[in-house]
C-alpha cells in the first residue's frame, strides 16, 4: 500500500511544502506517489520526479486545473485515492480546502496540521491555538492528513520517480473560478523564508517605510499581526498566527507586537526570536530569546544602519 501526496504548485513551480509533506510521509516506509494536477504540467512533473524518495509521479492534466477548485482536485484524489492507505497534503489554504472533502467522501476522519507522526496512525497536532499538543490515533482504513510544513524537513533532489499519466474526472459544474489577486512581492515567500520580520499595529502607515529596509538587508519576508492587517497597514496574506500563516524561520523579529496567544501560535516554532517593544511587560518578551525594550521607530532604523 502506497502513500499519495497532493502536490501544490503555482503552475510554474511546486511549493516547498510539497517537499516537507514528502519527508513527513517517510514515517510509513512505503512507496510515495505524488499527484500533480495541472493544466500544463511538463516542467512541474519533472521537478516532482526529482524529489528524493518519491517513487511515482501521477501526471493529471486537464483545463480545469489551470485555476484548481477544491471540488475538482478532491475528485481527482478520489479517483485514485481508494487504492492508497494514506493521503497527505501540506496544511496550506489549498490543502485545507481539498482534503476534508476527500475524507468525507471516503467516509474517514481527517487529521489537520500534523506536527509529528509517531508510529504510523499516531499523530501529534496543536489544539487551542498551539497552547496544547494533542496526540491521537486514527483507526480508519485510509488515513487523511494535512501536515504542518515547517515541522518537517525539506526533501532533497536526488529522486528518479517514474511518471505515469492519469485521466482527470469531469470538471464540476457547481463552481467556477472568477479571478485572483496575488500580492506580488520580490521578497522571499513568508511560509518558507529563513528570516521573517513582523510588525504590529503600532507601526501604522509607517509599516513599509520602517520594516522594508531591514527586510531587504536581511533577505527577510515580512509578516504582520492581525491587528495590523485589520487596520489596513499590511496585506492580509502576510498575517502570521493561528488564523494566518504559521512560520518557523531561523530568525523571527517581532517589532511592536504585544504577543497575543493567537500570534504566538504562528511563530513560536522559530529558532531564534527577537522582540522589540517599548513596553517591558509585553508578553512577547516571555517568548523571545533576545528582547530589546525600545521605541521601534528608533531601534529599527538603527539596526538597519548598523547592518550595512
Amino acid at each position, binding site marked *: 500500500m502506497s502513500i499519495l501526496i497532493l502536490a501544490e504548485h503555482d503552475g510554474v513551480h511546486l511549493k516547498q511544502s510539497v517537499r516537507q509533506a514528502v519527508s513527513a510521509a517517510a514515517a510509513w516506509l512505503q512507496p510515495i506517489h505524488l499527484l500533480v494536477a495541472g493544466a500544463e504540467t511538463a516542467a512541474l512533473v519533472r521537478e516532482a520526479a526529482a524529489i528524493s524518495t518519491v517513487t511515482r509521479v501521477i501526471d493529471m492534466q486537464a483545463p480545469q486545473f489551470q485555476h484548481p*477548485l477544491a471540488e475538482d482536485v478532491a475528485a481527482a484524489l478520489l479517483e485514485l485515492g481508494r487504492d492508497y492507505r494514506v493521503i497527505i497534503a501540506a496544511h496550506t489554504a489549498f490543502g485545507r480546502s481539498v482534503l476534508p*472533502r476527500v475524507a*468525507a467522501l471516503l*467516509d474517514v476522519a481527517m487529521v489537520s496540521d500534523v506536527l509529528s507522526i509517531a508510529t504510523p496512525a499516531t499523530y501529534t497536532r496543536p489544539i487551542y491555538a498551539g497552547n*496544547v*499538543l494533542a496526540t491521537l490515533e486514527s483507526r480508519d482504513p485510509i488515513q487523511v492528513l494535512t501536515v504542518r510544513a515547517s515541522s518537517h524537513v525539506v526533501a532533497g533532489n536526488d529522486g528518479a520517480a517514474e511518471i505515469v499519466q492519469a485521466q482527470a474526472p469531469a470538471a464540476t459544474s457547481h*463552481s467556477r473560478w*472568477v479571478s485572483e489577486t496575488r500580492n506580488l512581492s520580490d521578497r522571499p515567500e513568508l511560509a518558507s523564508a529563513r528570516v521573517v520580520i513582523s510588525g504590529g499595529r503600532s507601526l501604522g502607515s509607517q509599516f513599509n517605510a520602517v520594516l522594508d529596509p531591514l527586510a531587504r538587508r536581511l533577505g527577510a519576508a515580512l509578516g504582520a499581526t492581525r491587528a495590523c492587517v485589520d487596520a489596513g497597514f499590511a496585506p492580509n496574506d502576510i498575517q502570521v498566527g493561528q488564523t494566518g500563516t504559521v512560520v518557523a524561520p531561523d530568525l523571527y523579529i517581532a517589532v511592536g507586537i504585544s504577543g497575543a496567544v493567537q500570534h504566538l501560535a504562528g511563530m513560536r516554532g522559530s529558532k531564534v526570536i527577537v522582540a522589540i517593544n517599548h513596553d517591558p511587560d509585553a508578553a512577547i518578551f516571555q517568548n523571545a530569546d533576545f528582547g530589546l525594550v525600545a521605541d521601534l521607530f528608533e531601534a529599527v532604523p538603527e539596526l538597519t544602519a548598523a547592518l550595512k
Partner: protein
Amino acid sequence: MKVLVAVKYAVDFNIKPRLKQDGSDVDIAGVKMSINPFDEIAVEEAVRLKERGIAAEVVVVTIGGEPSRDALRHALAMGAGRAILVQTEVELQPLAVAKMLRAVVQREQPDLIILGKLAIGEDAGQTGQMLAALLGTGQGAFASALNVKDGEVEVTREIDGGTEVIALRLPAVVTADLRLNEPRFIKLPNLMMAKKKPIETILDSDLGIDISPRLKLLKVAEPPVRQAGVRVQNVQQLIEHLRDAKVIP
C-alpha cells in the same frame, strides 16, 4: 432565500486551557464558553443578508449539550429568526458534525449554508468542506466577502499569497474567515426579545446517524517552553548576540 448558519459553543478564546492531572485531555469543567468567533461572523453575514432583503429567513443550528443553547440565544439576539438544537452528549468530531448538519440541511432546504472556517479549541477547520462534499454542492472556504446574485454566490476567498474569487451555484456552503465582517454588539433589549424566539430541539438519536468517534485522543501535553531569553541593552548588543547565534551575517 433561506440561510442556515451552523454555530458551535466553544471554549472562550481568551481562556488559557488547563490540562487534566493525568494528561488525558483538556480540563474544560467550569470554563467560560462562548459562540465560536468565526461562527459569530457567519451569523452576522446571514443577518446582513436578511437586512439587505436578500435573505428571507435566517435559521441557526448547533449540535451539542444543553448549555449550547447559549450560542443559539446569542445568534437569535443578533437577528437570526429561529434556532435548532441537535441535542447530544457525545463529543463530536468534524465528520460526525458534517453528517448531522447534512440531515438538518435536508430538512430545512436552505439556499446558502454558512459555517465558521474553524472551531477554536480543536482547531480542525474541516466541517464546512466535509458538509459541502456530502451534500454534493460547491464550497467557498475562508470567505472574506460574499455577493449573492442570480442564483449564485460569489465568494472572495483568502488564500496563500492573495485572494481568489469563485462563484458557486446555490445551494452552496461557505465558511467565514475573520475579515468577512465585524459582528455587531448585542443590545440588551435584543437579548430579551431573543428569549421569545423559538428553539426547536432534535435528539441526536432521531437522526439515525453513526456518530461514533473515529479518532482516539491518547494524551495531551503542554508545548515545550522556550528558555528564558536575554534582555539586551541596545542595538549593538542585539547584533552581537545574533551574530553569535549565526542567524545574521
